[in-house]
């Protein structure tokens, strides 16, 4: 359970007990929680960071995990930089978040940081802590999301909002080992990080440097029982022969729309696992879990969730709860929620036979001659074809209708071995689309590709939609 009011993350981990048997494992080291709770990965220099605004920027996720555990309750503010964070944004962050200390495992931070008083090198090595953690501060946790201006948006959370409504594991007969494909410095990964550590489980963190197969092998070696990622992470994972090494009890999807194809695929691949898809966003927090194995969610869920209020307005999901972030940081930042406290997620819903289905993002809509198409709704249909492993629908400029939709598709069969079957598969996929979608949503062209780019967020890379209305 989350730490009681006023407690720090370190206190919460200790309260979850069984410290000597639990661990956090990264690509370079594994640390037991017993050594961690009474130790320091910052060479005992954390005391000097009391009340400071600390930017944590590490190459290694385990190193970041150790620093965050040590600094929550000591620092006034923690700014979490994910692995793909770019040097060019550093001066902006330092200024906007009033950063006066940096904790990093990087050898050099490049640009002029004369305004930052303290630089502390961190690593995965733990030494016994010889300082008193003293009175716990209510540390602000700053998460970065991609902004429209090119600069990252800074979303302010607290440990209470990040760790709120985390369910305890109950009386599990065996120790749980969580893992996530997400970077733990992004919302989806951070929730898993906190969930594991505050509920008495262990954690295996991913690495941006290793490949998918390496991560799956490492996760399997540590006996991962519970694992989360985006649908794109999972589609990638299931294309790897190493996916068979995992034997999870619990598989979780969030961050993108979980279509029926990926849910069914995971169900048949991991027949003994509970498959759960969840709605969450950095700003709105976690709203709900869906456990019935079906895409979308029952309409009756709205108004029925205990801690989360939901409503649908102008077609998009709005959320108000204790898990919603506090605000955006920065002088020019817009309010994060409306006057009524609801966050507009920008995720569009469609009601069909008593169930809401996510159709896409408001800012991703393609305008085909005045008619709207969400790429995700077309992808969900294409993904139903048994030969399709993954697809990306995008806009193609067109002089007649402004735009058309086209699809890039990864097949189960390698491209080189298609042997003239490409035309037949293309016709089959288009036939599937014509049977399920209005004409303007049917792709004008299908391109078979070997790979599709996935962003460091775990989501598919989508082009900015020049023709959205």
């Amino acid at each position, binding site marked *: 359970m989350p730490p009681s009011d006023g407690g720090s993350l370190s206190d919460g981990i200790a309260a979850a007990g069984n410290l000597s048997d639990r661990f956090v494992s990264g690509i370079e080291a594994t640390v037991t929680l017993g050594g961690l709770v009474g130790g320091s990965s910052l060479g005992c220099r954390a005391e000097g960071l009391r009340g400071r605004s600390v930017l944590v920027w590490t190459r290694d996720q385990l190193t970041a995990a150790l620093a965050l555990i040590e600094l929550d309750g000591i620092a006034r503010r923690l700014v979490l930089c994910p692995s793909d964070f770019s040097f060019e944004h550093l001066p902006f962050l330092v200024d906007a978040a009033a950063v006066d200390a940096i904790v990093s495992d990087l050898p050099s931070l490049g640009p002029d940081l004369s305004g930052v008083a303290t630089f502390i090198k961190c690593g995965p090595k733990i030494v016994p802590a010889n300082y008193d953690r003293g009175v716990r501060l209510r540390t602000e946790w700053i998460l970065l999301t991609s902004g429209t201006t090119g600069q990252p948006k800074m979303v302010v959370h607290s440990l209470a909002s990040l760790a709120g409504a985390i369910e305890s594991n109950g009386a599990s007969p065996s120790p749980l080992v969580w893992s996530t494909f997400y970077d733990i410095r992004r919302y989806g990964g951070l929730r898993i990080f906190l969930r594991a550590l505050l509920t008495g489980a262990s954690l295996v963190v991913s690495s941006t440097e290793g490949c998918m197969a390496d991560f799956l092998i490492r996760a399997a070696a540590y006996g991962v029982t519970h694992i989360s990622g985006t649908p794109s992470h999972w589609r990638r994972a299931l294309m790897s022969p190493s996916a068979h090494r995992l034997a999870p009890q619990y598989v979780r999807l969030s961050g993108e729309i979980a279509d029926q194809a990926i849910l069914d695929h995971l169900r048949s691949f991991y027949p003994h696992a509970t498959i759960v898809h969840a709605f969450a966003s950095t700003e709105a927090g976690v709203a709900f879990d869906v456990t019935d194995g079906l895409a979308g969610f029952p309409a009756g869920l709205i108004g029925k969730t205990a801690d989360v209020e939901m409503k649908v307005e102008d077609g998009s999901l709005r959320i108000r709860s204790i898990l919603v972030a506090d605000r955006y940081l920065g002088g020019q930042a817009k309010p994060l929620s409306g006057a009524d406290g609801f966050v507009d997620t920008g995720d569009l819903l469609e009601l069909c036979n008593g169930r809401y289905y996510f159709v896409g993002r408001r800012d991703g809509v393609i305008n085909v001659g005045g008619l709207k198409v969400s790429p995700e709704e077309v992808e969900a249909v294409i993904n139903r074809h048994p030969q399709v492993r993954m697809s990306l629908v995008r806009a193609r400029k*067109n002089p007649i209708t402004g735009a*058309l939709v086209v699809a890039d598709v990864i097949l189960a069969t390698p491209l080189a071995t298609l042997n003239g079957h490409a035309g037949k598969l293309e016709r089959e996929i288009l036939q599937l689309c014509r049977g399920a979608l209005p*004409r303007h949503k049917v792709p004008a062209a299908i391109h078979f590709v070997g790979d599709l780019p996935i962003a460091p967020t775990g989501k598919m890379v989508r082009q900015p939609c020049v023709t959205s209305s």
Partner: protein
Amino acid sequence: MSVRSEIIAQFTQVAEEQDKHLAPLADDLELVNSGLDSLCMAVIVARLEDSLGVDPFTAVESAAFPVTLGEFIEFYENAAK
């Protein structure tokens, strides 16, 4: 395949895919009377860009929009030169 025959082939194929009744293809056929709507024309233009490598609608500035099939073919033949 010539520009003309490629265009005729795409008109025929798209009409079939989109379940449209295509009028007999003659050079003086006005495109608005061809049986194809704007979505069909958009798909044809996209496919022709792939097969012929040109999109005269965006390549040529302030070009008069072709009204008949013959003008449409000529439009592409000029752009492909």
